[in-house]
């Protein structure tokens, strides 16, 4: 068991050694001077997918590519772009996949429509039941 854990840790450590010896991008780990801009950048980072470690946001990941993406986000926000502009720029490169913010599209519309249909049916069902009970209650 201990050996297995050690092996797993080793496997996790391997990629770190393989990432080269170039220092991280200037804004990978450095906050912007303007707190409002930093807050906007940070909020955006939490909704952008890391390209290499695909289940993490770029705010959560320590991968060098996530650092470079954070640098892009902070540099562009500092240059006056809005978070939506930065998101749109990334989507124009990588498609919707890069963004965790759900977009209505040809493949995702059922996710938005089906719950609404279920809700409407549930309300209709409830009204029908309540109406019947009330009718029978008054009758008896």
């Amino acid at each position, binding site marked *: 068991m201990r050996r297995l854990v050690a092996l797993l840790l080793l496997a996790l450590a391997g990629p770190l050694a*393989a*990432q*080269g*010896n*170039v220092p991280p*991008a200037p804004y990978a780990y450095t906050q912007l001077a303007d707190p409002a801009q930093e807050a906007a950048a940070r909020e955006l980072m939490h909704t952008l997918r890391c*390209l*290499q470690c*695909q289940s993490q946001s770029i705010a959560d990941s320590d991968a*060098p*590519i996530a650092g*470079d*993406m954070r*640098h*892009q986000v902070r540099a562009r926000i500092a240059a006056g772009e809005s978070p939506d502009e930065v998101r749109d720029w*990334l*989507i*124009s*490169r*990588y*498609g919707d*996949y*890069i963004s965790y913010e759900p977009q209505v599209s040809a493949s995702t519309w*059922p996710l938005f429509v*089906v719950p609404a*249909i*279920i809700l409407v*049916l*549930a309300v*209709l*069902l409830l009204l*029908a*039941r309540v109406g*019947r009970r009330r009718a029978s209650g008054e009758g008896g």
Partner: protein
Amino acid sequence: MRRLRIILWCMVAVAAALFALFYYQLNQPKNDFVTSAMVGQPLPQFALEPASADRPGLATADFKTGEPQLLNLFGSWCIPCRIEAPQLEALERQGARITGVALRDTPEDVAQFLELYGNPFTRIGRDDLSETQFALGASGVPETFVIDGAGRITYQHIGPIAPGDVPVILAELRKAGSGS
């Protein structure tokens, strides 16, 4: 009563359809590749400093030669890039013009990589902050793009080039050459 039953069956049908959708989507083979949305579009603007002493840097203008070229993203720190090196050499031997972009790299490391694994590149630009990678819509290294003679991206190969991919890429190069 009848209306109630119809509504109930409607709900069952909707739920069943939803689960059928889940079942279908969960059974699709998982695809970890994030493809570039830039395929079919002109190359983004970039002008990169040389990544090694013996090859010039790389800029968008270098692709408007009338001849299709390959654009290979690599890094000396990237293990799969070593694995694909023989295939890049094979592509070069068969007439492909190959340009490179070295990601997050130092000139010393690039020089050592080229010495060890071969240098099929005509030009190599350095992309220290992965900016060109993002501009191309590439998600990692190695990746290889086919660029036609007008500087338009016509094909993206994600991951190391396996021996079996060489004919595919040569065919894409020919296609890019005849199209422009």
